[in-house]
């Protein structure tokens, strides 16, 4: 309530400038109904930086060569609930279908399971995938995990690499896995170093870049990203994912996203899961 009456206001022209900047830099297309959200969330940043208007803040973001403030801003407008094993159906699907199928498909090698967590946020998603693989009865010692985890925000990537999560934020994590894969230190569960080393964390902008991968992925997770993109950007991204997938590989998207309105050449498997 306070923000609404005492916060900085944003006029339509300023909102347009922010929308354009955010779209150009991240592919995120803020819709009209996000004006209020942008205002609420950036108010905090403006106050934290000791500025006095949205116009002033816009110049800071635009002129910041380090892109640090740009990242802060993108973080502020694209928040998601993250937790371990979020959207449990994806992990059930991995265990019951994607893992056994992939291992069977690659029974003559290469003995690598290649996964990309394309918007890995603070790490809960790639670690949940990793645990699912390591716990799988068919995933024996001859198999290697090749796991790439990327995000557009360096801030969350740092968190992901540290792999430290407050003790009270471990909902969804079975006790057995907690004991096996984490060390408890001063109120934080920390992913064991050996496991952290199994994940390659990299900064990556999904829209600005051509995908540089030599080898195809067996599974790609890209959840809660496309929801922020307009149709052409979505279609381009799905096309690039399709290209990066091995035949028979799977793309998992977020539960608020549907490709029902998007032109693509993948096959629909079940809600939010597609295959090449």
């Amino acid at each position, binding site marked *: 309530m306070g923000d609404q009456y005492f916060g900085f206001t944003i006029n339509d022209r300023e909102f347009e400038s922010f929308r354009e900047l955010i779209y150009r830099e991240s592919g995120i297309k803020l819709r009209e109904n996000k004006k209020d959200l942008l205002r609420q969330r950036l108010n905090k940043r403006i106050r934290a930086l000791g500025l006095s208007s949205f116009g002033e803040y816009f110049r800071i973001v635009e002129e910041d060569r380090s892109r640090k403030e740009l990242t802060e801003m993108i973080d502020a407008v694209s928040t998601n609930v993250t937790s371990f094993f979020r959207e449990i159906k994806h992990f059930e699907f991995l265990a019951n279908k994607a893992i056994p199928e992939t291992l069977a498909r690659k029974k003559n090698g290469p003995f690598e399971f290649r996964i990309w967590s394309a918007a890995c946020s603070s790490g809960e998603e790639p670690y949940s995938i990793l645990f699912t693989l390591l716990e799988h009865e068919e995933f024996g010692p001859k198999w290697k995990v090749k796991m790439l985890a990327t995000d557009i925000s360096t801030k969350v990537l740092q968190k992901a690499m540290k792999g430290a999560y407050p003790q009270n934020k471990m*909902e969804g994590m079975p006790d057995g896995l907690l004991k096996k894969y984490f060390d408890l230190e001063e109120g934080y569960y920390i992913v064991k170093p050996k496991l952290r080393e199994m994940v390659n964390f990299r900064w990556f902008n999904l829209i600005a870049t051509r995908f540089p991968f030599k080898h195809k992925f067996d599974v790609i997770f890209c959840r809660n990203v496309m929801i922020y993109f307009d149709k052409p950007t979505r279609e381009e991204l799905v096309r690039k994912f399709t290209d990066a997938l091995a035949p028979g590989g799977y793309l998992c998207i977020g539960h*608020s996203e549907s490709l029902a309105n998007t032109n693509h050449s993948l096959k629909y498997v079940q809600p939010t899961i597609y295959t090449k």
Partner: protein
Amino acid sequence: MDWGAEYKLGVERFDNHHRQIAGVIGRMEDMARQGGDPAAWSALLDEMISISLAHFTEEEAELAKKDYPELLEHQDEHRNLLNELFELAGRQKETGSGPSLEVAEFLANWMAVHVAETDMRYRGLFGE
């Protein structure tokens, strides 16, 4: 869609809303399987929009009153679904397309994840 005990929050008002929304989605799934004309499908999409909008508004106001720390993320999830729904409904009106099982299943899955995983995070605010 089946609306079982795993979706029960224990907050009567919202549990009732959820059951109503699940009912609309169930009718969409039935129509997608048994067939129906584009006008009837369009009406169901509109009903889904209005019933979710009303529920989200009420739920968000209640969570704001209780200073729920994850309100912003929660709101985002609501808005993201609404945006997707507006787009689906808008496209349907343009093309006059008929019932789609992919769309009905998408909504059923959204609802299941949102209630079982996202709403459950706030149930502690409503101690009985």
